[in-house]
């Protein structure tokens, strides 16, 4: 029997962490991290979990300790946010190249500066090339469900790639929502035991981890990482299907909302997808063929699948909650357009930067994006393809 509760996204992930019960959790326990490690450390203090909690002096140390722990053969997790993730940067690449399936709960918040602590995707987008799987959530429920599925994807023998389970800062991390939790034993059975194929603390079989790779090896190592990353798509779909059997909730690479016959499709990721769906519902009532595609898995990017899902759209609007300063598009706009181009498609695509650093995202503001799409369709003129939403001036 599922357990009905009302929890913030941070509490929900902390509960998932307790249920998954990894062996070790090194984490920097104070700001810029959210209250997530604090919730989890109270489970440790109260004897409600067997996980060893290692408070460290920085996020760089947290990820370094994760690497050591996971390489030693222990299932390892951590949590961070914003500039805490930025401070892990150097070690994120090391974790990925060593093929250590660590799970990291990320609460997406702006990177300073200007100094700000509110929701946007700059932290995770900065880490998008580090070789980690990145999965995003719209709701607290999805954040919880994604964390329960994390190790099944990351540890799969065809993958062996670390995974970030992302949720939107404050909007879901601190916002309380109704949620359906799974029972402890159900999660335990679903996640299963961790059986690494090799591990550093194995006296029967010595090995060295993280060697220097000179030019004859480095490119082959990177290609091998890329193959593991690509395999994560198939594995995530399989794990999602299994998860549906225990939860009744369906997960794929992305979610299509009223896209089947849609002329105008918004591609969006994270909590604003909920507002987007409301916007679509309103427009549908007015007879506008609006739809929404919510990206769940951002790395690896399901480009072929997304291009296929967008094939009948007249105009597409890609929504980026970050600025990447390439002067022409944001990360989602960039990836979606590349996917369409590779599929031989050239629909009209607008790209919006929205909701930076906690700027409100409303049915009205997202509605204006659909108005713009209709305008472009009517005039045949795309105009400025890279726009800022709700910008004064």
């Amino acid at each position, binding site marked *: 029997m599922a357990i009905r509760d009302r929890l913030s996204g941070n509490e929900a992930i902390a509960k998932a962490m307790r249920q998954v019960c990894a062996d070790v959790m090194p984490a920097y326990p104070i700001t810029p991290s959210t209250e997530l490690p604090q919730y989890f450390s109270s489970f440790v203090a109260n004897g409600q979990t067997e996980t060893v909690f290692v408070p460290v002096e920085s996020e760089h140390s947290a990820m370094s300790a994760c690497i050591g722990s996971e390489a030693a053969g222990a299932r390892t997790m951590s949590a961070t946010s914003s500039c805490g993730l930025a401070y892990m940067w150097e070690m994120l690449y090391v974790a990925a*190249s*060593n*093929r250590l399936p660590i799970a990291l709960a990320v609460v997406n918040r702006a990177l300073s500066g200007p100094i700000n602590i509110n929701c946007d995707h700059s932290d995770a987008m900065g880490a998008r090339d580090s070789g980690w799987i990145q999965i995003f959530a719209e709701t607290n429920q999805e954040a919880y469900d994604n964390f329960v599925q994390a190790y099944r994807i990351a540890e799969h023998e065809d993958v*062996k790639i670390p995974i970030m389970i992302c949720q939107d800062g404050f909007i879901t991390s601190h916002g309380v929502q109704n949620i359906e939790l799974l029972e402890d034993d159900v999660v335990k059975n679903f996640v299963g035991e961790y059986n690494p194929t090799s591990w550093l603390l194995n006296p029967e079989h010595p090995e060295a981890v*993280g*060697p220097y790779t000179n030019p004859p090896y480095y490119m*082959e190592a990177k*290609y*091998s990482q890329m193959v593991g990353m690509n395999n994560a798509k198939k594995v995530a779909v399989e794990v999602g299907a299994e998860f549906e059997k225990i939860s009744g909730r369906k997960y794929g690479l992305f979610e299509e909302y009223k896209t089947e016959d849609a002329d105008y499709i918004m591609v969006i990721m994270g909590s604003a997808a909920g507002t987007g769906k409301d916007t679509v519902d309103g427009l549908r009532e007015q007879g506008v063929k609006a739809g929404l595609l919510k990206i769940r898995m951002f790395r690896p990017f399901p480009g072929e699948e997304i291009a296929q899902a967008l094939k009948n759209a007249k105009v597409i609007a890609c929504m980026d909650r970050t600025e990447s300063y390439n002067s022409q598009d944001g990360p989602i706009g960039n990836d979606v357009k590349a996917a369409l181009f590779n599929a031989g498609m050239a629909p009209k695509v607008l790209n919006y930067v929205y909701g930076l650093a906690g700027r409100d995202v409303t049915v009205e503001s997202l509605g204006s994006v659909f108005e713009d799409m209709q305008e472009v369709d009517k005039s045949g003129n795309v105009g400025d393809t890279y726009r800022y939403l709700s910008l004064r001036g």
Partner: protein
Amino acid sequence: MITDIKKQGEDVKWQDLTPGCIIDGGGTAKEFNTGEWRIDTPEFIEDKCKQCLICVPFCPDSSIPVEDGKRLDFDFDHCKGCGICAAACPFDAIVMRKGE
């Protein structure tokens, strides 16, 4: 389990790389001939050697083999020619020569 270390040469295909480039097995540093890096070379003058063995723990690369309590000539597969042994020897039984 993991690909044989013998396959991990410079011609290795990506499919044959160990996961995360793990070096499978212990003591593999032996197979890496760091002696190739040597510029100056130590010479062991056996007549002057009192077999005090002080040079042995000073060698940073275990390149002075010891057998039956006596040091032998250098392991030139691994000696990088750093000269620490020559500086440590109290009896001038090790001298550094220019070149390999």
